[in-house]
């Protein structure tokens, strides 16, 4: 999921100081799990804005904020509230914010959160980054552990000299990705593959931004 963090509320209030009436838009997926865009956080921000003497015309937790069409349909029933608001604050990720920008061409849209990374939830509201969406997956060659993401240097062929007792020179909190890969490949009987293979430099053209994908097959006329 997309991991988000609340922007500093002072900064947020400063960003939207020129507006009088707001509509708050959350998301029931990632942002709810992150505790940044669920009903509770919407209520909290509503209270904060009202405490500052600003009006909150409406608030809604969309099912999936990055799904533009679906969110548009869901918001139809808030036509009146949205009409009253001169600013929409989106409490999901950067994708959700930009769904709103697409839907509301002539209305100010502001983000309430910072979007951090694609994360795995390890425990409630604890997240790890394991995949960086590089566009050219090499997990098949690295025992299923991604060094592009979990090694701060993105090294592709084994540990650097900065490994200290199996941990990373960047932080003792980070287990060395290449020690993990080595141990996993050893356990799964793939050590020879580890030793024999040298990975060539990655093809970064697979992640030239902005990326676009049409996965559906066009219906033949």
């Amino acid at each position, binding site marked *: 999921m997309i991991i988000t963090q609340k922007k500093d509320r002072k900064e947020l209030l400063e960003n939207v100081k020129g507006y009088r009436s707001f509509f708050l838009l959350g998301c029931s997926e990632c942002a709810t799990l992150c505790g940044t865009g669920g009903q509770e956080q919407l209520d909290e921000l509503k209270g904060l804005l009202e405490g500052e003497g600003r009006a909150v015309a409406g608030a809604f937790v969309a099912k999936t904020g990055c799904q533009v069409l679906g969110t548009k349909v869901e918001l139809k029933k808030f036509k009146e509230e949205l009409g009253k608001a001169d600013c929409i604050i989106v409490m999901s990720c950067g994708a959700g914010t930009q769904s709103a920008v697409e839907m509301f061409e002539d209305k100010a849209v502001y983000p309430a959160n910072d979007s951090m990374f694609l994360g795995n939830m390890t425990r409630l509201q604890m997240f790890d980054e394991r995949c960086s969406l590089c566009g050219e997956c090499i997990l098949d060659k690295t025992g299923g552990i991604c060094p592009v993401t979990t090694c701060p240097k993105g*090294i592709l062929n084994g540990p650097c000299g900065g490994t200290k007792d199996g941990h990373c020179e960047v932080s003792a909190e980070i287990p060395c990705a290449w020690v993990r890969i080595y141990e996993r490949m050893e356990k799964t009987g793939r050590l020879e593959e580890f030793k024999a293979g040298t*990975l060539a430099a990655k093809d970064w053209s697979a992640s030239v931004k902005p990326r676009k994908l049409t996965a559906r097959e066009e219906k033949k006329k």
Partner: protein
Amino acid sequence: MSFQEALNSGKFVVTAEVGPPKGTDIAALHHDIDILKDKVDALNVTDNQSAVMRICSLAICRIVLEHNAEPILQMTCRDRNRIGLQSDLLGADVLGIRNVLCMTGDHVLAGDHKGAKPVYDLESVQLLTAVDSLNNGRDMAGNGLKGGTHFFQGGVVTPEANPLAPQLAKFEKKIRAGAKFFQTQAIYDIDKFKEFMTFARRFPVKVLAGFVILKSAGMANFLNKNVPGIRVPEDLINELKAAGKEKALETGMDIAARHIRRLRDENICDGIHIMAIGMEDKVPVIMRKAGLL
């Protein structure tokens, strides 16, 4: 005799290093090069060491050449992508630089520009592959070059890495990628190093043992605590402690000389890489003590 020739001659080779300064005043650097140049076989020039921004290694390598000394261009992958690295390698070649030491490089978080974007488009193994390709007249994309490079390329290895097995696997990858020589992270436990060399001797590469001059027990403790891959054994720390403040540096130099003699006399490795880190004037002293001058 070039560095490569020296290694191939079978003599016990000595390299030292100079760190480019932060700023354009290179008076002290000229001085250090002059102290070292007739004593050692080659001089490493570090590449923004510890990720602290300084004069580039390439420019200082050229200055080393102008002193009639032989530079080893240290090249890390932290600050340049494959276009920048290959371009600098071509530039190094036309400036007459013949030795290159390929490393991944300390992370920017270790340095003085922590907000910098770390590059790591390549890493050490891939950089070695790139050097090999340039030597053979082609760039990494397979394009032909109008004139290839002439590098004698090497890598680094950490014999004290914990765990060691993944490090050794990478050492082999570097050899397959074209590394001809290795300079190791500082080693202080010769018996353990001998075990590493038993492994390394299976490959057609030259190995220079790294050594950082110890000036006090405090420094040894600092290295143990803060530098991954360095382990100063307790008995050496006690030896430095027993020497007292006044004599600690002298003892550190004696330890260096003793180690060098043993590495050479027992033919454990092919040479020594002395990292003086600000005490360049002590390198000839150690070499004399070790019977190398």
